[in-house]
């Protein structure tokens, strides 16, 4: 038996793929997380009030989702409801995260695969028109920058936000910076659409060239967003069956009744299933669960997706296209919120510490994220992080096995496999720093 090992790049964190091959048969395909820091252990004993500023450090890419999930879990324990202004600023934070993440995944992680470059920073730009527009790479970075700037505006610190606190946010957003941000987003929304259109075309071209969209088998889908518009801070998870029928809907405190978790001996990350079935989280799950997006341009793209691929759609490379729809949605939704007054004084409500157990759910770009804490005497006694990437582990491995079987025969290994492995993993946009913490 031979073992093929593939290092991975252009994903968040340290991971690799190992395939065991015997007589040209792929016996196993393992997606291995190869790093771990141990947050669930060393958070024990931390002051509860410090959690929202510490947990973003689980991941510099998903930091905002951890920041808000942490605050929600603590508010659940202390029984406090943040004022409306705080909700809006937190939504802006999550939208900034969605823009930054989807733009990073689309343009920095996966676009090089579409054009055969090793990175966005090494793309051939000769076809760009220097007189009229910035090149593809530069425009991509500008669109991504909108997300970063939105996180900074709504979260204070630009990578590890600080403004969400138990009971609210530390400050509102003044009119002047809000207006400047509005103008930026308005100017870059058409650029984001242009880039997404180009990306869509490149993806379709690639599908024809290599003759595959990857693992197209039906799966279960999990997300926590709304049916008619993506709510990023809902309190309900939903599971869709492979046939498009909704199978379950439950609050985060009941997740163990619906999802089965297992540790693995070959990875520092575990894996979850929906009652033993392969499940998918992230953009495709949300689009399969969404009837509409609630903003005009994003709704147009969602209709195009549904019209072209049906609903629910299962080809894994559609994850990438769904990220583009969400990128456009996040631009449009941010415009709606920034048009409101975000500078009045009602930012926080007081709270008192008490012992208890709480859950905080947010829809992170990679899927539903749950923080679960037990607090005694103001200190965290236990912390559990239920990570979206872990919900995708079985689906990633199933897709890798499909890719392996396609390119490995008893006679030869087609070297296209190495590229296919990268494309498959990147479609799921896994986050290893989060998955292992």
């Amino acid at each position, binding site marked *: 038996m031979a073992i093929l090992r593939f290092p991975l790049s*252009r994903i968040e964190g340290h991971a690799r793929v190992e395939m065991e091959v015997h007589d040209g048969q792929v016996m196993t395909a393992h997606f291995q997380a190869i790093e771990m820091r141990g947050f669930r252990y060393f958070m024990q004993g931390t002051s509860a009030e410090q959690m929202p500023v*510490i947990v973003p450090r689980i991941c510099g*890419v998903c930091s905002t989702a951890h920041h808000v999930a942490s605050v929600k879990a603590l508010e659940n324990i202390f029984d406090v409801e943040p004022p409306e202004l705080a909700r809006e600023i937190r939504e802006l934070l999550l939208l900034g995260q969605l823009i930054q993440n989807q733009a990073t995944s689309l343009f920095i992680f996966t676009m090089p695969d579409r054009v055969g470059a090793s990175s966005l920073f090494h793309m051939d*730009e000769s076809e760009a028109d220097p007189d009229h527009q910035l090149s593809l790479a530069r425009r991509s970075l500008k669109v991504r920058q909108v997300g970063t700037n939105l996180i900074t505006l709504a979260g*204070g610190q*630009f*990578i590890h936000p600080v*403004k969400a606190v138990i009971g609210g946010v530390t400050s509102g957003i003044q009119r002047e910076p809000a207006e400047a941000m509005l103008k930026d987003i308005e100017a870059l929304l058409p650029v984001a659409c242009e880039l997404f259109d180009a990306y869509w075309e490149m993806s379709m071209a690639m599908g024809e060239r290599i003759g595959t969209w990857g693992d197209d088998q039906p799966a279960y889908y999990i997300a926590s967003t709304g049916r008619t518009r993506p709510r990023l801070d809902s309190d309900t998870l939903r599971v869709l069956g492979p046939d498009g029928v909704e199978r379950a809907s439950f609050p985060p405190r009941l997740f163990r009744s619906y999802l089965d978790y297992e540790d693995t001996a070959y990875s520092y990350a575990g894996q979850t299933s929906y009652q033993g079935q392969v499940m998918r989280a992230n953009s495709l799950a949300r689009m399969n669960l969404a009837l509409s997006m609630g903003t005009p341009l994003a709704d147009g793209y969602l209709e195009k997706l549904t019209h072209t691929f049906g609903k629910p759609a299962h080809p894994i490379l559609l994850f990438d296209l769904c990220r583009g729809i969400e990128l456009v949605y996040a631009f449009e939704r941010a415009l709606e919120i920034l048009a409101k007054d975000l500078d009045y004084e009602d930012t926080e409500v007081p*709270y*008192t510490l008490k012992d208890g157990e709480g859950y905080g759910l947010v829809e992170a770009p990679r899927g539903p994220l749950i923080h679960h804490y037990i607090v005694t005497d103001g200190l965290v006694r236990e912390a559990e992080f239920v990570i979206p990437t872990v919900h995708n582990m079985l689906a990633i491995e199933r897709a890798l096995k499909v890719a392996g079987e396609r390119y490995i025969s008893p006679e030869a290994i087609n070297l296209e496999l190495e590229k296919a492995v990268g494309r498959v993993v990147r479609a799921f946009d896994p986050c290893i720093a989060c998955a292992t913490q």
Partner: protein
Amino acid sequence: MPENSTLPRFAVLQLSGCAGCEVSLINASEWVDQYQLVYMPLVVSTHAVPEDTEVLLVSGGVRNDEDIYNLRRAVEIVDRVVAVGTCAISGGVANLGDRDDVRAMFMAGQDRHHLPHLLPKSHPVDSFVNVDLYLPGCPPTPELFMAALLDPENYQASGIVCGECGRKKLKDMRPQHLVGFQQGEVLPDICLINQGYLCVGSSVRGGCRAICTRPGHPCVGCRGPSDAYIEKESQVWFDRVQNVFERMTDIPPDEIRDALHSPQLSMFLFQFTDYADANRPPRPKEKVL
């Protein structure tokens, strides 16, 4: 931005960390015209640091045996090594795991045979290799990245975070106790210490533009001690924070001392990996941006 052999080449080695430093670097896009990025697994598909690389940025702490191997191999190739971010410099948040009880749970529950082996604790980069420049922050701002890559000698920042914060220190507003966020609103424009927050910006090195304190969150010290304290023992830094609070508030000194020395306080966990088991001199302030 396209490949250009005349531009100096730099690489980014990611050890065990959160990638926040890398994201900050991507946010600083000015380098794309002045440097050629040759290795950074987050964004480039190359699997080793190539020859002729001039500058190596190292982020993350040394948490497993593969981190040690990759670090030692990479520094041999380059001319200049920059330790980036709090994890690489002093252990960072992950260093909170440097407690016996945590270590016992961690090693028992998580070691895996066929994967890189976890070390008992997270180590700073300079426990293993020499570092030419330290770029602290969690993460360093894009401006700091640019300064480190382009002109570290002439970089000037405020000495302390207070110099960039702009909140007014009031003589007649003296809190009786540390209160944290339980009180509700944070008042705009007034020093957070006057409002009873444990803010340590008065002795933390500037250069971050006070991005946490200006919107209302106390400084947790991610950039580490200012030049006045960086070459001294940590106790001198603690004493300085203590003095500031005794001068500006009526909070009982014991309450401040207990809060500062709580091992779970985020300020503490940002800084003190130090060299307890390595016997090295402190990092010279000339090497810290």
